[in-house]
C-alpha cells in the first residue's frame, strides 16, 4: 500500500470501491470490502492522514454483550429506550448481535483492550446501559481502535490510501454514483477518482456549533456531499450534547469517569441528579444529564467561571490508583488544560455538542437512495441511535456497520460495470470552474471565512442547542439563509494552490452551512420533545404525530421535509423513565 501512486490525471476506472474518510467506520469498511472480494481494490480518500481522524479522540469504550449476565435483548432494549423509541428496532437487534464478533475481531487484530485478572476482556459501566457492557482500553479507546485498524490496513496491498485529498463532490452517471472529485491538497489540483461504489465515512459535523467536543476536521463534509447529490438526511434535529466537556476548550471528559464511579455535584456539594434521574444518577443517559446540568445552572446552583457556569465532576473518592489505571487521559487532560489535579480537585464541566444522531439516510447495509452510494458511522443514520445515542454505542456502530457496509459495497461493485469516465470528466470541469475560477480567483470578497463561521456557530448554539423553541428555530432558518447569501461574498485569503487551508476552510464552511440548515429545518416542524430534541414550547413526546423519522432533502429554496415510519419489532413505545 502506498499513498501516492495515483497521479492527478487518475484514470476514472481506478477503484472498485472508494471510502471517503479514514476513521473507525471507514477503515473497517475498507478492510471488510477487500476481505469480501479477493479481486477488488479499495481507495481510502481522506483529508487528513487517517490516524488523525476524530475517532482518535473517543475515550470511554465500545459496547458489546460478552458475559453470561448480559444478553442481546437487554442491549437492544437499553439502546431503544435510550433512543426515546425513535431507533429502528430491526437495526438495533442486528447491531446488538454483531457487536461481540467485532470486539473480538479487534482483539485478534491486536487492540490492547483492558483485561480482567483472568485474562478476559474487561467491561465497565456506562450511561443508560443496565449492566457492565462497555469494553475499554483505559480511556483511550478511540485512539487504540483507530491505530489498530490503521495498522491492520497495512497488511492489505489492495487498500490504497490517498492521504490529504479533500473530496469536493460526488460524480453521478446514469443515476448511480461513479466516483468523486477531490482536491489533492499537496499537489493543489483537482482530480476525478472513478469508482463503482463510494462509501462516505467522514464523521459528524460538530464544528457547526460553537462549543463542541469535536476536532476541527468535523465539518459535515460527507453529509453535505450526499445531500447535494439528492440523498436525504435523516433525523438531523437530534444532536447530542455530552454532559461533561471542559469549559472554554470543549475538550471531552469521558463518561467513563462516571462509569468508574465519579459524581456530578453543584456548588452546594450536592449530587443534584437525585432530583432528575434518581434511579440512575450519574449513569443516566446523556440527553437527560445535559438538561439536568442546565436546570441546575438556571436555578443558580452552579459554579461561575471565566467561561460561564459549570458544575463539578468529582473523582476524588476514586483515589489516585484507580484514576491512573482506568482514567489516565482524564488526569492528563485536566492537568494540562485546566491546571488542576482531579485526584484532589473538582473538574469543571458543562454540556457541549458531541455527536450527531442524524445523518445520511441508510439501511443496515449502509445503502442510500443513490445506487452505489453508501454511508457509515456518525455521518450516517441507520437509525440505531434514534433521538439519543447511548455512550459506547458509537464505536461499536462504526465497527458493526463498517463491516456490513464494506461487504455490501464490495458485492455491489462486483456486479457493477466500470463508469465510462465522461461524467467524471464533466464533473471535474464543473468543480474546477466552481473552485478555481469561482472561489480561488474571486476578486474582492468582503466576508471572511472565520467571521461567517463564528456567526453560524453562535447562532446554532443559541437557537438549535440543548433547548429549542419555535421563535428561535425560525430565527435560525432565516439567518442561516442570510449567511448562505453572504457566503457568496466570502474571500479566500490565500491564492496559492498548494496545501491551501484557507481554501479548504471555505469549502468546509460551504458544507457546514448546508448541514446547519438541514438541522434547523428538521428541528422546526418537530413539535414535540424526544431524546435530545427538547422543545420548550412542546415539552412532551407526541408519538401520535412524531413517532417517525424526519427526512430532509435539498431543494433550490428551503429544505424539503418528509417523514418515514419507525420500525418497531418487539418493544412498544413506553414512557422513558430512569
Amino acid at each position, binding site marked *: 500500500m502506498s499513498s501516492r501512486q495515483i497521479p492527478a490525471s487518475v484514470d476514472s476506472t481506478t477503484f472498485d470501491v472508494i471510502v471517503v474518510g479514514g476513521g473507525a467506520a471507514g477503515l473497517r469498511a475498507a478492510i471488510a470490502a477487500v476481505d469480501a472480494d479477493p479481486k477488488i481494490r479499495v481507495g481510502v480518500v481522506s483529508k487528513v492522514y487517517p490516524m488523525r481522524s476524530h475517532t*482518535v479522540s473517543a475515550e470511554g469504550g465500545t459496547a458489546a454483550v460478552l458475559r453470561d449476565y448480559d444478553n442481546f435483548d437487554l442491549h437492544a432494549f437499553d439502546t431503544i429506550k435510550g433512543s426515546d423509541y425513535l431507533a429502528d428496532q430491526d437495526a438495533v437487534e442486528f447491531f446488538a448481535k454483531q457487536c461481540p464478533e467485532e470486539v473480538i475481531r479487534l482483539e485478534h487484530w491486536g487492540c490492547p483492550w483492558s483485561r480482567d485478572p483472568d485474562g478476559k476482556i474487561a467491561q465497565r459501566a456506562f450511561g443508560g446501559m443496565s449492566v457492565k457492557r462497555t469494553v475499554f482500553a483505559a480511556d483511550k479507546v478511540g485512539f487504540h481502535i483507530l491505530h489498530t485498524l490503521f495498522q491492520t490496513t497495512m497488511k492489505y496491498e489492495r487498500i490504497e490510501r490517498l492521504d490529504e485529498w479533500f473530496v469536493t463532490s460526488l460524480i453521478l452517471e446514469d443515476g448511480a454514483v461513479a466516483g468523486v472529485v477531490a482536491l489533492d491538497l499537496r499537489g493543489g489540483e483537482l482530480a476525478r477518482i472513478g469508482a463503482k461504489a463510494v462509501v462516505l465515512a467522514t464523521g459528524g459535523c460538530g464544528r457547526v456549533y460553537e462549543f463542541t467536543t469535536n476536532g476541527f476536521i468535523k465539518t459535515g463534509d460527507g453529509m453535505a456531499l450526499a445531500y447535494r447529490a439528492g440523498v436525504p438526511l435523516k433525523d438531523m434535529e437530534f444532536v447530542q450534547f455530552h454532559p461533561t466537556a471542559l469549559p472554554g476548550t470543549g475538550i471531552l471528559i469521558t463518561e467513563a469517569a462516571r462509569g468508574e464511579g465519579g459524581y456530578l455535584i453543584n456548588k452546594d456539594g450536592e449530587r443534584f441528579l437525585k432530583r432528575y434521574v434518581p434511579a440512575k444518577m450519574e449513569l443516566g443517559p446523556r440527553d437527560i444529564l445535559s438538561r439536568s446540568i442546565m436546570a441546575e445552572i438556571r436555578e443558580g446552583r452552579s459554579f461561575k467561571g471565566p467561561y460561564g457556569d459549570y458544575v463539578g465532576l468529582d473523582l476524588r473518592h476514586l483515589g489516585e490508583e484507580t484514576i491512573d489505571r482506568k482514567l489516565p487521559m482524564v488526569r492528563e487532560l485536566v492537568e494540562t488544560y485546566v491546571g488542576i489535579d482531579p485526584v484532589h480537585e473538582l473538574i469543571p464541566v458543562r454540556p457541549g455538542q458531541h455527536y450527531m444522531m442524524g445523518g445520511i439516510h441508510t439501511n443496515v447495509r449502509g445503502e442510500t437512495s443513490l445506487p452505489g452510494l453508501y454511508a457509515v458511522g456518525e455521518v450516517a443514520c441507520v437509525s440505531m441511535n434514534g433521538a439519543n445515542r447511548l455512550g459506547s454505542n458509537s464505536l461499536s456502530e462504526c465497527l458493526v456497520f463498517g463491516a456490513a457496509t464494506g461487504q455490501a459495497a464490495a458485492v455491489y461493485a462486483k456486479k457493477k460495470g466500470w463508469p465510462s469516465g465522461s461524467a467524471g470528466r464533466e464533473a471535474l470541469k464543473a468543480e474546477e470552474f466552481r473552485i478555481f475560477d469561482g472561489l480561488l480567483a474571486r476578486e474582492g470578497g468582503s466576508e*471572511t471565512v472565520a467571521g461567517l463561521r463564528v456567526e453560524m456557530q453562535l447562532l446554532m448554539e443559541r437557537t438549535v442547542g440543548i433547548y429549542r423553541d419555535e421563535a428561535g428555530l425560525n430565527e435560525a432558518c432565516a439567518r442561516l439563509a442570510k449567511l448562505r447569501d453572504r457566503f457568496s461574498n466570502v474571500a479566500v485569503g490565500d491564492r496559492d494552490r498548494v496545501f491551501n487551508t484557507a481554501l479548504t476552510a471555505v469549502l468546509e464552511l460551504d458544507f457546514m452551512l448546508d448541514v446547519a440548515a438541514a438541522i434547523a429545518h428538521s428541528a422546526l416542524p418537530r413539535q414535540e420533545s424526544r431524546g435530545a430534541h427538547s422543545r420548550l414550547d412542546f415539552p412532551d413526546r407526541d408519538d401520535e404525530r412524531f413517532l417517525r423519522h424526519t427526512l430532509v432533502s435539498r431543494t433550490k429554496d428551503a429544505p424539503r421535509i418528509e417523514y418515514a415510519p419507525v420500525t418497531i419489532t418487539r418493544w412498544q413505545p413506553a414512557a422513558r423513565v430512569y
Partner: protein
Amino acid sequence: MAEKDVVFRVKRYRPGHDAAPHYQEYRIPYTDDMVVLDGLNYIKDQIDPTLTFRWSCRMGICGSCGASVNGKLRLTCGIFIKEVRGRAVTVDPMPNFPILKDLVVEFDDFLRKLQDVKPYIVRGEEKPLAEGEYLQTPEDVEAYRQQSMCINCMLCYSACPVFAASDHFVGPAASALAYRYIRDSRDEGADERLGILSTKTGIWECTFVGECSVVCPKDVDPAGAIQNLKVLASIRQMRELLVPKWARR
C-alpha cells in the same frame, strides 16, 4: 482574564514561490489559558489567512500539530504561550522532513517504514472468532502498553540525529511500534520483524542519543524500545549461529 501581547515569529516557506524560508512576525493578544496552537489560529483567522499548519483534536491525541517552539519540539496544542520563555514565540516546522508549506511537512516516508516493520498481529494460525479472545492478563498488556501509545506525531524523527544524517534509518516510532507487536503475547512475528530491523538501515544505526524519548509527548520511550530490540536481535543472531535449525522454536 487579563490580555497581554506577544510576538509570534513563524517560519514561512512556499516551495516554488519563496527563495528560502524566512520568519514573519505577528503581534497578537493572548490570555494565560491560550496554547501556541490558539495563537496560530488567531493569526490565521484574524491577521493572515495564508499562514498554513495542520491541527485537529486540540487535545494531544491526533498528533497533527507538532512543531519546533522556541527550539523545543512540541505539540503546539500542548504548550501554553505563557510557558514560552523569551520575548517572542518562535515557531518552526518540524526539522528533518520536507516542507510542503510553512509549518506543514511531509512524512509519507515514515508510513512506508511503519508498513515495512509489519505493525499488525502476525500469526501462523488464526483462532476462529467463535472461540473468543486470546487471553491476556493485565501484566501481558503491560508488556506492550507503553509502546502502543505512539500517536505518530513524528517529533521523535525530528529530534533524531541519526535520522537527520541518514533518512534511510528506520527511526524511533517505527521501531517502537515493531517492539510493541513483538512484546504482544498474541503475536508470532518477532523473528520476521527482528530480521527486518537488523539490516544496515535498522536499529543498529541508533547511537542511543535518546532525544526521541525526551521529546515524546506520550512517554513511549522509543530509545528504550530500540535498546531492547538490539538485545532481542542479538539473541536471535546467537541462536542462529549456535542452535541447529531443528532445535529452534
